[in-house]
């Protein structure tokens, strides 16, 4: 019966703010191995349970269980672990560099290292990744030169992007890594276009695009899904749900109403919800989606459930908006620790080898930073000022030529 009630505007509220007890009971967890793995050519209409499941492979003991457990060789896993460890050490080092005034800006991906590393090892060099700023592990897994990252971050004379772009907004075409931008979400549709171009050319390349869960609110996300659906674009569309978008919890983007993976349902695209801190699950889910894309079966939407363990950026202090001990309560653990335990359990890795790996990555990062510092940090060295006027157009017009003359460079 309809009561004579007055309407109330609903404003979502996160489970815990500073001073309150962290509460992740809203994260719908399922045991490792529980989620079924349909064949990649299953009809979308018969996979509509998957967006509400959770693909997990690594159980609490570090064993790989269930139908999604991929068969990956020891060396492959060592490479994956290395990419993640390198990423974490690099992040920590560059964050410090920012505090020392060597760069203007930096963002870490602590806790999310599997999200770039594993897909990078699934996709080929010819495929194209349309990254967010939080998947540098994609480049780490491809041995992108650390020096180029450092020089870009320092905006120095050796910056591959010529000082024009904000730190960490890399571009690395030869590594299958599309140009980043500060504008959220605006490349999601480019991935679909790239994938459609591959299909148009009857090539075999596919695309992978990332978007933060906060950014799924942008129109770009929904437009991209529509085009991916309508044209069966060979693309993997990945949502990194790290629970926070700066100070806004995932419910601000609709996460209290349904899962992000379930956005797929309205577009008739298969959707997977995946433990993003489980390297093996991320690998397996990406491989499944890649197989669909390469078999001309079209797009897949994947939600990686993860947690942003560090602040949003060097400008951010997360204790102002979430409990300071929240990271410790995150139920899906740490991707590096989990893969490491698994490898130790399988018998081809040890604490000693892990410590040696960390030391080796640390040495490499230090060397790269030192080399970058020798060229110069922000403000101490920069590309020639004439670079400011280049690349606006392929060929500068009279305005740029005159302005360059006016500045005397």
């Amino acid at each position: 019966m309809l009561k004579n009630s007055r309407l109330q505007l609903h404003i979502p509220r996160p489970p815990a703010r500073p001073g309150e007890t962290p509460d992740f009971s809203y994260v719908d967890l399922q045991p490792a191995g529980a989620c079924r793995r349909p064949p990649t050519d299953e009809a979308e209409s018969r996979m509509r349970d998957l967006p509400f499941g959770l693909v997990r492979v690594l159980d609490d003991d570090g064993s790989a269980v269930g139908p999604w457990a991929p068969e990956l060789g020891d060396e492959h896993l060592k490479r994956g672990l290395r990419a993640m460890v390198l990423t974490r050490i690099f992040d920590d080092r560059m964050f410090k560099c920012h505090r020392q005034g060597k760069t203007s800006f930096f963002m870490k991906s602590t806790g999310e290292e599997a999200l770039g590393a594993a897909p990078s090892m699934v996709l080929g060099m010819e495929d194209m990744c349309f990254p967010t700023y939080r998947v540098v592990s994609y480049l780490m897994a491809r041995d992108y030169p650390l020096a180029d990252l450092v020089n870009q971050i320092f905006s120095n004379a050796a910056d591959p992007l010529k000082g024009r772009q904000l730190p960490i907004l890399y571009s690395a075409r030869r590594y299958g890594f599309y140009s980043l931008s500060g504008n959220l979400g605006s490349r999601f549709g480019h991935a679909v276009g790239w994938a459609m171009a591959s299909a148009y050319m009857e090539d075999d390349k596919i695309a992978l695009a990332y978007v933060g869960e906060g950014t799924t609110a942008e129109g770009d996300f929904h437009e991209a899904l529509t085009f991916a659906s309508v044209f069966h674009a060979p693309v993997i569309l990945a949502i990194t749900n790290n629970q926070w978008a700066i100070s806004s919890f995932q419910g601000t983007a609709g996460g209290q109403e349904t899962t992000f993976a379930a956005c797929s349902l309205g577009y008739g695209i298969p959707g997977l919800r995946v433990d993003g801190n489980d390297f093996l699950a991320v690998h397996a889910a990406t491989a499944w989606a890649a197989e669909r894309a390469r078999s001309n079966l079209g797009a897949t939407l994947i939600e990686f459930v993860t947690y942003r363990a560090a602040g949003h950026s060097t400008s951010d202090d997360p204790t102002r908006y979430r409990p300071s001990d929240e990271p410790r309560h995150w139920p899906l653990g740490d991707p590096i620790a989990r893969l490491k335990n698994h490898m130790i359990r399988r018998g081809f890795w040890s604490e000693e080898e892990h410590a040696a790996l960390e030391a080796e990555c640390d040495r490499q990062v230090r060397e790269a930073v030192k080399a970058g510092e020798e060229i110069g940090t922000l403000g101490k060295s920069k590309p020639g000022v004439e670079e400011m006027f280049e690349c606006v157009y392929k060929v500068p017009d009279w305005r740029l030529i005159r302005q360059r003359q006016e500045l005397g460079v």
Partner: protein
Amino acid sequence: MPAMNMIQAINSALDVMLERDPRVLIFGEDVGYFGGVFRATDGLMEKHGAKRCFDTPISEGGIIATAIGMGAYGLRPVAEIQFADYILPAYDQLVSEAARLRYRSGGEFWSPITVRSPYGGGIFGGQTHSASPEALFAHVSGLKTVIPSSPYDAKGLLISAIEDDDPVIFLEPKRIYNGPFDGRQGIPLKPWSTHAASAVPEGHYTVPLGKANVVRPGQGVTVLAYGTMVHVCLAAVDDVGADAEVIDLRSIVPLDIDTVVQSVRKTGRCVIVHEASRFSGFGAELSALVQEECFYHLQAPIERVTGWDTPYPHAFEWDYFPGPQRVSAAIRRCVEARP
């Protein structure tokens, strides 16, 4: 009277309006619990409740569309776009909807919304945290575009914007949030408290939209600026020792054409300064107007000092930024020119 910096003055304007008018509400990315990435809405959610000041999804188009719908219903929404660079996903809503709703509905519906957004460079924000998009709005009939240059003006203009029945784009020069930065490098930033315009009344007051401020009277040359550039121009005038009249436009639409014309007819010389790039920048409009209205009084070609016609480059921030040196040179050229 309390001394406020520009953020505190904006916060105070919002607080006053939330208090006075239950139809006013504030929303945008991270503006609620956190109080905004520049802290402009700090404490407002706690004080006035989550319904009055809340976080939105990250969707600038959604934020403005929602504001327009609320405004049409009769509310007075104040939306924040976190950086002016990110207003573009909402451009269609602003241009095709907010600006034209009154016109196309024969006055049945209108859009009394205010869109606040930090703009401009000088913080090493690179090409996506530095833009000055004012000309994109000035070109659109039906929108008003307001740019304060001091705490006092920020509060008074923002209250006028919120009370205005038309859509107002309120661009906040973020480089001067904490002090009147004048473009001079390597010297510590003076805090606002050392500046007269940091004396901001606690309660309600307005600074009318469309009334420019002669911040420095003079006879020899008129300098037109707004936002951060007002302070850069004052520094440049000091450097040159020119008898310049510096006019802070405060709002570019509506534009205080009378003050501009009176001044240029008096001085016969005009320098126009903005941080946005030059070609089709707002300076082009000012230059055209001055030429149309003051042609027979002009003693020298009108000078424009602007950002270059490139995106805002990270490492070359201070090569791009039209600082006091470039402004001084233009003032000198303009003052020394002889027909």
